[in-house]
């Protein structure tokens, strides 16, 4: 069985070719429905849609460089109560898939009957920037692909994407590949699992082949991004180190908690920081005020951010949706990604890498970290 095939692109439009592949999956009854990004009629944004009618895939856009919400949250909403009874396809980016793997481990989603179709990601623009580009009568995909082709630093890329190590999706059954290919002529369709291989065989497509450039280009791409990531970490460390700098980093926070709502990892129905633990009687407010003689209202802004960090940093996939959701434009990604990287390293844990790896906060070893209790 062919593990990968090169799909001919018509009209220099790789997105359209992927759409007809997806339509084929529905036509042949291999899938009952597909979760796929779709351009809104106003063209200003792209949303995830669940599609069962192949005709409705014409405006689908698997390459549109924008991420309004993480599809991981959508899949969790769809499968938290019970696994999907019918086979569904999910068109997702690397960061979304990695978040989904974490949610499955947290028992917030089920992958049963689901086919993950990962798409190479060159990066995304913020919802606002995407709409801006459209309003200037430009095509965001063209802007992105052209920029990538010329190897220039794209000024619109979200900060998360600039330092993202994962251009190629992991844990996918099928992978739609762009990197290392001349995507105006062909795209790669590759199986990432047995399930994917069977689907690929059922599609019964003739043209098989490989792209010799791909592996090299992918590794080059990640190397560049990792270098930028490490530079960002060292700049960030200087910028936010210490209570004084940290408190000024969060100075413009308005306590809206959008960061928590947008975070695909923050799954709790009731956040600890919204729970009755943080409901105080009037006397308690006065008692707390008496400690310093003055109390900021609403209270506990920094406690919320640091506490949330403690709860989710081991699983942080660095999607940067917290930052995109922040109405005060606090550059949250760099601090969460840096902290996440540090704590994940202790447990040699990479969130979203593998379903078998257990989340560090859910397990322990008897003979580890002995120095922590002794010193």
């Amino acid at each position, binding site marked *: 069985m062919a593990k990968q095939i090169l799909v001919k692109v018509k009209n220099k439009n790789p997105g359209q070719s992927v759409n007809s592949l997806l339509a084929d999956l529905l036509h042949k009854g291999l899938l009952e429905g597909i979760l796929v990004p779709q351009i809104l009629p106003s063209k200003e944004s792209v949303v995830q849609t669940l599609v069962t009618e192949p005709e409705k895939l014409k405006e689908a856009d698997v390459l549109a460089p924008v991420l309004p919400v993480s599809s991981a949250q959508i899949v969790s909403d769809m499968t938290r109560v019970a696994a999907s009874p019918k086979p569904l396809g999910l068109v997702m980016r690397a960061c979304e898939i990695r978040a989904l793997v974490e949610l499955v481990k947290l028992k917030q989603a089920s992958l049963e009957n689901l086919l993950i179709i990962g798409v190479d990601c060159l990066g995304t623009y913020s919802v606002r920037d995407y709409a801006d580009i459209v309003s200037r009568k430009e095509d965001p995909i063209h802007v992105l692909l052209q920029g990538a082709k010329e190897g220039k630093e794209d000024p619109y890329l979200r900060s998360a994407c600039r330092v993202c190590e994962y251009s190629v999706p992991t844990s996918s059954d099928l992978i739609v590949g762009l990197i290392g290919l001349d995507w105006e002529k062909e795209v790669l369709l590759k199986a990432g699992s047995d399930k994917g291989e069977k689907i690929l065989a059922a599609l019964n497509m003739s043209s098989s082949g490989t792209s010799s450039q791909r592996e090299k280009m992918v590794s080059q791409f990640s190397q560049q991004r990792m270098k930028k990531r490490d530079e960002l970490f060292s700049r960030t*460390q200087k910028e*936010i*180190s*210490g*209570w*004084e*700098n*940290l*408190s000024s980093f969060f*100075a413009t926070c308005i306590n809206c908690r959008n960061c928590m709502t947008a975070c695909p990892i923050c799954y709790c129905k009731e956040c*600890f*920081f919204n729970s009755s633990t943080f409901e105080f009687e009037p006397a308690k407010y006065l008692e*707390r005020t008496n*400690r*310093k*003689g*003055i*109390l*900021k209202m609403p209270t*506990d*802004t*920094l*406690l919320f951010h*640091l*506490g949330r*960090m*403690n*709860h989710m*940093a*081991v699983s942080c996939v660095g999607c940067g949706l917290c930052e995109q959701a922040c109405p005060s434009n606090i550059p949250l990604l760099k*601090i969460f990604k*840096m*902290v996440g990287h*540090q*704590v994940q390293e*202790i447990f040699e844990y990479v969130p979203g890498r593998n379903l078998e790896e257990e989340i*560090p*906060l859910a397990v*322990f*070893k*008897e003979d*580890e*970290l*002995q120095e*922590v*209790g002794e*010193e």
Partner: protein
Amino acid sequence: MDEFEPKIVGFLCNWCTYAGADLAGTSRMQYPANIRPIRVMCSGSVDSAYILRALLGGADGVLVGGCHPGDCHYVSGNYKARRRITILKEIMKTLGLEDERVRIRWISASEGKRYADTISQMTSDVKKLGPNPVGTFWWV
């Protein structure tokens, strides 16, 4: 000027460290009065948020006391606490927040002396660190 007397909040597990503190007291052992003990059912029940809240509220140090590894009344609470504190300390270190102010120690019900020594040691270490800077920040 008066010598700086740090405030240290102690989250002490009911089954081991709190009983150890009790033994230190009934044995009339001397140790600094800088610790403010809070009895908790298990070191594994102490969410990092409580530790952070103590620090943000002005505590100069936080001690979590639990049973020795292998001796947890609830079998594995202290192992979980150990991971949680490790993560908290790593986050504090990464953000330059003096993670030395947070400690976890294993003290059994029979180790009154160890409790007294732990408090003495921590008090002297936190004295050297000086007052917790965020303790005076009202804007956090």
